[in-house]
């Protein structure tokens, strides 16, 4: 799953700090072994294609993957056209309806608005 997310982060040609921090957070939440994290970090330099790793993920996890992928794509502030195209392709390859992607975009937007709801000034 992380390999797909790395491909998403790199889709617009560069992995920015926000995306790297997001990927590290997901690796942390997944409590991956440090060596596995190192191997994935190395892939940031040469991102993998996403289709192969996607095919190895069980279908019941595809929506979760789409959620995380959309989050990673949005975390630097905006969806790049290449990222949106990639998400659409992923959705299609996973056999998901376009409405799932729209619901995912909405969920991500809600989350980003929630996260932004407490700025440094709020407290």
């Amino acid at each position: 799953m992380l390999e797909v997310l790395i491909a998403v982060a790199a889709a617009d040609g560069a992995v920015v700090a926000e995306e790297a921090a997001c990927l590290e957070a997901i690796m942390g939440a997944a409590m991956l072994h440090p060596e596995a994290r190192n191997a994935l970090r190395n892939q940031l330099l040469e991102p993998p294609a996403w289709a192969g790793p996607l095919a190895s993920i069980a279908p019941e996890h595809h929506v979760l993957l789409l959620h995380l992928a959309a989050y990673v794509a949005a975390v630097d502030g905006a969806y790049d056209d290449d990222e949106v195209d990639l998400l659409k392709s992923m959705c299609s390859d996973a056999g998901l309806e376009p409405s799932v992607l729209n619901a995912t975009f909405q969920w991500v937007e809600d989350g980003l608005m929630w996260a932004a709801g407490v700025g440094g000034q709020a407290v």
Partner: protein
Amino acid sequence: MLPDTLHKLPQAERFAYAKLLAFMTRVDDELTIDEMAMFEQRLGTALLSPNQRKEIRAALKSPPSLQECLEGLGPEAGRLALRDSVLMAAADGNVDDDERAILDEITVHLGLRHDAVDQLLAWTERGFAWMNEGFALLNELA
């Protein structure tokens, strides 16, 4: 996953932030899997060096004093650390009295508004509701 300014802070402040979170994990003498996952997630966002991560994980076993944790925090790192301490304390579904007392102590140290922890708890509740919406969406499609 929280998009925030943590990764933009100086490394020393990110380290201090992570030390405070490590301290928070030990406050109620019980480290649940939910708290650990939240801690690891935030540690990831802090983009620490491998050696610093090792130090932080060692701090999980023998945490430094609260005073020591607070010393290296600047104002922004302090606010982010308080916010994420609230998230971590609430990760197992309950903020107990010991955790609340520490959160209040951090608030006073940082010179924040007296209702800062209550505001952050309300924000955390909204966030957990948002995460649950995500799970509900996954279940609907299963």
